C-alpha cells in the first residue's frame, strides 16, 4: 500500500527532480534521439521511389533474404536449445548445474568479434569441428549455415533467460493435479506446463530473432561476405557507407530498424502477457 502512495508524496518531498530530469533528457537527446532522428530524416530525404529502388535492387534483396533466412534458422536452433536448457536448469538437480547455468551468459560477455573469430577457426575445413563435418559434405564457413551459426551463438541467452524465471515460478499444483489424474509426463508438459510458459517462450524467441537480424560482429568473420551469397544486410549497409552512398546505407538501415522496432513491440506485448500468467 505504501508503495503506491509513496511516489505521489515523494514528488513534493524528495529532492533532485529537476537535476535528474535534466540529466536524463540531455543524455537521451544527444546519445539516442538525435542520431536516430538523423537516420529517419535522411530516409525521408530519399523519397519513396528511390527508396523502393534501393530496397528492391537484386543485391539488397539477396542480402535481406539471406539475413532473414539465417536469422530464422538461428532462432529455430535457439528455440529448441533454449527450451531444453531452461527445462534442465530449473527441473533437475545434478553436479555442475550452476556452472552450466553460468555458461549460458558467455555469449553476452564475449565480444561478438571474438566469438566470430573463434567459430570461424573451429568450423573451417581444418578446424576441430570443420574436420568432422567436411567429409560429410557439410561446409559451414562461408555459407548460410555459418551465418546462422554465428547468429545463434550470440543470441543463445535470450530464450533461456526469458523462459527460466517463468518455469521456476510455476505453481506445481497444476502439474500434481494432472499427475494424480493419470497424465503422462509428456502430456503434462504439453497440456499443463507449455501453455503457461508459451508467452515468455515466444517473447524470448522474438528477442533472439531481433538480435540475429541485427548481428554483425560475429557474422562478418564466418560469412566470407560474398555479394549475393553470404552478404548480410547490415554489412551491405556498411559497404554502401564506405562507397559514400549514404542514401543506400540509410535505406537499408531503416528497413532493419523497422524490423527491430516491430519485434520490440511484439516481444513487449508477449512479455506483458507472460507477467499476467506469473501473477495468477
Amino acid at each position, binding site marked *: 500500500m505504501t508503495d503506491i502512495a509513496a511516489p505521489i508524496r515523494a514528488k513534493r518531498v524528495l529532492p533532485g527532480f529537476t537535476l535528474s530530469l535534466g540529466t536524463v533528457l540531455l543524455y537521451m537527446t544527444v546519445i539516442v534521439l538525435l542520431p536516430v532522428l538523423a537516420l529517419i530524416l535522411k530516409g525521408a530525404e530519399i523519397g519513396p521511389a528511390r527508396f523502393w529502388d534501393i530496397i528492391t535492387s537484386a543485391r539488397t534483396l539477396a542480402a535481406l533474404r539471406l539475413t532473414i533466412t539465417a536469422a530464422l534458422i538461428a532462432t529455430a536452433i535457439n528455440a529448441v536449445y533454449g527450451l531444453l536448457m531452461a527445462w534442465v536448469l530449473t527441473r533437475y538437480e545434478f553436479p555442475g548445474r550452476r556452472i552450466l547455468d*553460468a555458461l549460458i551468459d558467455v*555469449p553476452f560477455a564475449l565480444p561478438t568479434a571474438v566469438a566470430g*573469430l573463434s567459430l570461424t*577457426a573451429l568450423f573451417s575445413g581444418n578446424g576441430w*569441428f570443420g574436420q568432422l563435418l567436411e567429409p560429410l559434405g557439410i561446409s559451414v564457413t562461408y555459407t548460410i549455415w555459418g551465418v546462422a551459426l554465428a547468429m545463434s551463438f550470440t543470441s543463445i541467452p535470450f530464450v533461456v533467460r526469458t523462459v527460466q524465471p517463468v518455469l521456476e515460478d510455476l505453481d506445481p499444483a497444476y502439474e500434481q493435479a494432472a499427475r494424480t489424474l493419470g497424465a503422462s509426463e509428456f502430456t503434462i508438459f504439453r497440456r499443463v506446463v507449455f501453455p503457461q510458459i508459451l508467452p515468455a517462450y515466444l517473447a524470448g524467441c522474438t528477442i533472439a530473432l531481433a538480435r540475429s537480424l541485427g548481428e554483425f560482429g560475429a557474422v562478418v568473420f564466418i560469412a566470407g561476405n560474398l555479394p549475393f551469397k553470404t552478404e548480410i544486410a547490415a554489412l551491405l549497409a556498411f559497404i554502401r557507407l564506405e562507397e559514400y552512398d549514404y542514401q543506400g546505407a540509410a535505406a537499408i538501415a531503416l528497413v532493419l530498424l523497422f524490423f527491430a522496432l516491430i519485434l520490440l513491440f511484439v516481444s513487449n506485448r508477449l512479455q506483458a502477457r507472460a507477467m499476467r500468467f506469473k501473477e495468477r
Partner: protein
Amino acid sequence: MTRQSRLLPRLLIAIAVLSTLVMVVAPLFYIFAAAFAQGWRAYVQNIMDPLTLHAIWLTVLVALIVVPLNIVFGVAAAWLIARFRFPGRSLLVTAIEIPFSISPIIAGICYLLLYGRQGFLGPWLEAHDIQILFALPGIVLVTLFVTSPFVAREVLPLMQAQGSEQEEAAVTLGASGWQIFRRVTLPNIRWALLYGAVLCTARAVGEFGGVSVVSGSIRGQTNTLPLHVELLFNDLNVAGAFAAASTLTLIAVVTLLLKAVLEGRAR
C-alpha cells in the same frame, strides 16, 4: 521412480551438457588454445606488438570515459523513474531500452548521418574544425549509445522495490540531497550499481559493429581492440588475432565471475 522416468532426465541433461560444450565451451576454450598454440613467448610477442598495445590502451580509455558517464545517466534515470511521477514517464522507460533493440551497426550509421561530412551537423562541425567521426569522440558516443541501458536497468528495479521511505525519513531529518544520495541511496543500490557497471564495461570493451562504422579503423589511432582483432584476421595473422582476442576473452571471463558474485548480493 520407474526406470523410464529416470532415463529421460538423464538423457535431457546429457544433451544439454553436450550441446553447451559444443556451442559455448569449445569457442571459449579455443581462443586460448589458439592464442598459446605457438607457446608463451610467441604469445607475449603478439601482445607486445605496438599496434596491439595501442588498441588495448584505446579500448581501456574508451571504457574509462563511457562507464562513469553511464553510471551518472543510469543512476539519474533510475532516481527519476523510481521516485517521481510525471507525464511521459512510461514512455521514458521504453525509450531507455531502445538501444538494446537497435543493431549497433545501425547506431553507427545514425551517428555517421548526423556528424558525417554529408550529415546534418557535418558542415557546421567542419567549419568549426571539430573532429567527431574517425576520432575518439565518435567511438565514445557510439559506445555510449550501445551501453546506455545497462546501469539503469539494473538499478531501477531495485530502487522501485526498495521504495522511498528511508530517503523521505532522511529529508524530514534535514539531510541535503547529496547527503541522502551518499548516505542512504548509494549504500542500498551499490551492488546493483556495480553489477550494471560491470556489464556496461564488458559491453563497452567488446563493442564492434557501431565502432567499426564511426572509427575508420585507423591503425595506431582509432583502432579499438575488437577492430584490431578483425584487422589481424584479415591480414591472415591468425595467431596475432587470437592473442588480441584472448585479452578480450579474459575480460569476458572476469565479467562472468564478477557477475556470479554480484548477482547474489544485488538481490
